Structure formats: C-alpha cells, structure tokens
C-alpha cells in the first residue's frame, strides 16, 4: 500500500439542480502509484474533470454533492480533513494544471506575482525569497525571468500554459492533476509542453493524473490509463495492455473513430449515437445503446468490473468470456 500515493474508492458525485440530478461520477475506483502517470481518457461529460476537482476538493457545493466514496492521499482520507488542513495540501502537495490557460490566470496581476503567491503561502519565506523561487520556476519552464513582471496578456497561449505549469509545480507537489494541459495548444507547442512535463516529472519524481480526450497524448506520456464513460471507468490497465489488448467496445470505438496517419481505410468507423443523458442513465450497461455487440443482459443490469489479465480491468459482460 505504501507506494500508492492516491487511492480513490467508490467515488460518486452528483450535481443537484432545481429540477433534476446529474449523475456525473458513479462509483469510481482508481489508484495512482508513486511516480506514475495515469491517463484519464473520455469524451466531454464523462466526468473526468469532476474526478480531479473532487480530489482537490474544489467542487462547488452546491450544486455538486459527493454521494459516497473515499479519497486516500497517503492513506489519509481527504474527505475527512478540515478546510484548513486541506488548504495545506491544496496547491502544495496536490496541484492542478487547468485546461484553459487563457482563463486560469488573473489578468490584473503579473505572472511573477501569481507564481510567488503560491510559494509564499505554503513556505515560510520572505517575499523576496518567494519571488526568487518564482523566477527559478519560470526559467525551468523555459521563460526568461526578465518576463517576471509582465501580465498574462503579454504572453502567447503556449507561454501562458507554461506559466500555469510553473505555478502548479512551484511547491514541488507530490501529485499533479493535469486537466487537458495541451488541448488549447497547437501541435508543435503541445509537443514542447509534453516534453517539458516529462522531463520535469523525471527530475522531481511527481505523480501525474493526465486528463485528456486525446489517445495520442496518452500513448506518448502515460504509464497506465483509465477510460471513462458516463461517469464510470469502463477499462483500466497499463497503457500497453489497453492499447494492444483493447477489451471494452467503447475503447475499441474510440480507436476506430480516430483517423490514423498511416492507414488507408476509406471510411472511419465511428461509434453510433450519443452519450446517454447523465440525468437519466440507463439501468443496464451505460454503453449498451451504442454498443455493436450488445446482448439482452446488457440492458437488464450493469456489468461488473472483471480483471481479464493482471491489472487489466474491463466493465463488460463480453470481456473474459470471449477470451476462453
């Protein structure tokens, strides 16, 4: 157990609105090992960001409500901590890179101030020392420290994202939650940022949860991957296993939907239909309606998570059966 930095047990989160309940996350189990990068893949509305926000306890309550679950950070349940204890962890031991660098920065403060602010809050040091450390962080992400006193609008998108990363890494967090860190960026800048995150991870030994919808990003940067669909994890395993021994029809559908650079197929094979309405989830398997292999039993009750090989879990009735 000691080498698991984060364990999530049976996490369920709902959003309560005036007239309905949105079931965003429904009983998720996840483990992040020390130094590991876990990819959390899924489409819009699959619940990826809600999971990350629950870990940091920055869900807006209400409307959000954590129905059940435990989140163990170093074997300590985050849910039971007081707000002041949580503050010592948030931004210090667990940090988050937000999706949109254009809106994650405060437009009326200099980027230097914003980085130094986090450092000053979590460490006993003078303003001067915090700013010095802030300069160091900027240099580390490849921005000359002369730009410490500039405002966010003076930076390009890629540079803003690097500022956000510098901010997240400023206190040497043990766990980094990266929410679509490269989605808003051009491919060439995405390559720069991914490369940089990788080398920083090696240098600092940070564990990372990489939230993304891009399977290419997962292939190039993650050790293991959890595929989410309608608030559930449908497939979970090492990146190698999930990519090469793909077992869940949804994961297969995702791969089929991607145009591949080196194939000559005349048409893509998209998944038909749409994700189910999260206020009114089907009682059986969530993917049932869109599944090409659906059986009668799929509509009746939800399948259990099956371990089809060591560490490779699949939530599907067909999984494991077809292997025999």
């Amino acid at each position, binding site marked *: 157990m000691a080498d698991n930095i984060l364990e999530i047990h049976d996490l369920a989160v709902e959003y309560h609105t005036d007239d309905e309940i949105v079931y965003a996350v429904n009983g998720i189990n996840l483990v992040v090992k020390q130094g590991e990068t876990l990819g959390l893949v899924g489409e819009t509305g699959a619940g990826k960001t809600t999971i990350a926000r629950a870990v940091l306890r920055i869900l807006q309550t209400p409307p959000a409500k954590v129905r059940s679950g435990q989140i163990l950070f170093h074997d300590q349940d985050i849910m039971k901590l007081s707000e002041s204890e949580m503050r010592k962890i948030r931004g210090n031991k667990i940090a988050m890179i937000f999706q949109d660098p254009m809106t994650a920065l405060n437009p009326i403060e200099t980027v230097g101030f914003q980085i130094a602010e986090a450092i000053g809050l979590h460490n006993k040091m003078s303003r001067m020392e915090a700013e010095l450390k802030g300069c160091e962080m900027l240099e580390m992400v490849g921005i000359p420290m002369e730009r410490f006193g500039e405002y966010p609008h003076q930076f390009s998108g890629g540079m803003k994202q690097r500022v956000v990363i510098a901010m997240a890494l400023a206190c040497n967090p043990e766990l980094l939650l990266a929410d679509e860190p490269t989605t808003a960026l051009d491919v060439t800048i995405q390559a720069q940022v991914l490369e940089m995150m990788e080398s920083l991870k090696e240098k600092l030994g940070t564990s990372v949860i990489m939230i993304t919808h891009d399977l290419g990003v997962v292939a190039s940067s993650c050790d293991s991957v959890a595929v989410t669909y309608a608030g559930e994890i449908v497939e979970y395993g090492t990146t190698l296993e999930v990519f090469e021994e793909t077992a869940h029809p949804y994961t297969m559908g995702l*791969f089929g939907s991607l145009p591949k650079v080196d194939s000559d197929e005349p048409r893509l094979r998209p998944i038909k239909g749409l994700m189910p309405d999260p206020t009114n989830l089907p009682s059986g398997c969530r993917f049932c309606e869109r599944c090409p292999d659906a059986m009668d039993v799929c509509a009746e009750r939800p399948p259990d998570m099956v371990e089809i090989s060591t560490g490779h879990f699949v939530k599907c009735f067909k999984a494991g059966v077809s292997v025999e």
Partner: protein
Amino acid sequence: MSALLEVKNLRKYFKNKAGMLHAVDDVTFTLEAGKTLGVVGESGCGKTTLGRTVLHVIEPTSGDISFEGSDISNPTKKELKHMREQMQLIFQDPYSSLNPRMSVSETIMEPLILQGKLKKAEIRAETKKLMDTVGLAERFENSYPHELDGGRRQRIGIARALSLQPKFIVCDEPVSALDVSIQAQIINLMLDLQEARGLAYMFVTHDLSVVKYISDDIMVMYLGQMVEKAASDELFRNPRHPYTQALLSAIPSLDVRNKKKRIIMQGEITSPINPKPGCRFMARCMYASEECGSPQILEEDAPNHFVACCKYKTMTQN
C-alpha cells in the same frame, strides 16, 4: 480539364497600429471539382483568412481568383450573389455560428428563401430533404440550437451550406470542437456528401491526422505563406520543408511501443506584422543559415510537390 477554382498570388494585408499584418501572402493554388484541398498550419498562420478571402467574405488586397473559368477577383454585387450560391462556408464553432433565435428548419431554409427561386411548399419539402441528407431526424425541425449537442449543430451548419447546391465549400475547422466519436460521424458524412454531389472542399484545420484522411492535396501554411504543397500521401511520406517535418513529428502517435522522436522547435511563431523579406520560419529552423535571409521561392521539386525552402536539397542529402 480546367480547374474549378484557381487562385493566383492572393494577398490579404490588414493595417493596424504597428504596421501591415501579412495574413495571407502570395498564395497560389488550383482546386478541381470533387477534390479536397487541406490547409494546415498553426493558429495565426492565416488559414482562416485564406478561406474567407477566397469566398470574398473578406476582400483580398490583391490577387486573382477565378471560378469555373470566369474571373471573380472584383465581383459586382450581382455577381457576388450568384457566386455565393456556388460557394459556401461551414464554420468552426457550431455553438456560436448559429442564430440562437432561429429553429433548425428556419436556419436551414433561410438561404432558400433569400434565393427566391422556390415556392413556400417547395422550400419546406427541400428543407426536409436536407435534414434527412445530413442525418437530422425530423423531430428536431422546431428545436433551437441550444437544445442540441455539438454534432447535431454541426449537421445544421452543413445542411444550411448545402441548401443552394454549391459546388465548392470552405470548411473552417468543422470538426475541431467535437468529441472524437462525433468527429468521425461528421467526417464520414462529409465524405459521403462529396461522393454523392461531387463537391470540392477546401478543408482548413490544424489537425494533421484529419487532414491526411480527408484531403487529396495538402497545403502547409506558415505566417501567411504557403511553404509546401503536395498530394496528401506524398506530403506525409516525403515532407521536404523543415516546418512540415516538425509539424508531422509533433502528431501524437498511437503506437505505445515505439515512441517516435519528436522534433522540438525552439521558440514560437514570430509576428506577422511587417515581416522581414527572408524565410519566415528561419528563427525556429534548425537548418537556418545566411541564405535563408533572402526571399524563398516556391519550387516544384517533384511533379505536384512544391516547396519554398533553399535548404531542402542539402538537407535531404544528409
């Protein structure tokens, strides 16, 4: 066979406080009926401006555009109206490009009403047909855009663009805002429509795997200029321009075992305002030397493979 669309030395400069912004600088290409030209490049390289300039949504600064053999560089109002029946635009963001106060059928039939050729009943029938063509169920007829998801909204945009039976459509990042499973549905729809109606597309995108998939020819743009153009397969097999090479190497691969070597470019796209005469990619290029400071000429290196770089020959020999 004469080309459907011919664009010669097209330029669009925007004047601003700091000087002249060269959004599109000397772009030349032809497009045949039923074919797709992909235009790729990073944000700010002028690919959207190029698409809009071709359609006269933005007036070009200079250059010649001809469509079906007739010159449309300086159209009169009447010519423009006729031209727009033939040439349409599909927008990037299905969330902001639809009028939130118009229902699905109103949005789709609006061009037909403006055209004024059909009677009311015919327009209604045509609208139904269009909705069916793009895979929108009839029950959405009276829905409003906010009630629909991104994929369906994009289908409305496509139906509207198709309504006047154009021959040429500029697609400006039509699938970038969509999830992969929906993206694949829309791409397949666009390919089906092309096959059935012989449409020509100019497909503007930053997503290289999508562009490879859908295009016959691909044009790579950098800071307003075309740096390379070739048939889709050829470009991916033999990229010549250092920028194209870097761009292709940056595509995240799905291969878990062989992590490919990415070419990491230093720095970022430089300013397009009053650019220096030489190669615009020079500041980020690892092969750059003194000769790159003089203007780069677009050469046809192999049949239908154009490249604007003075270094590519020595580079490929290495």
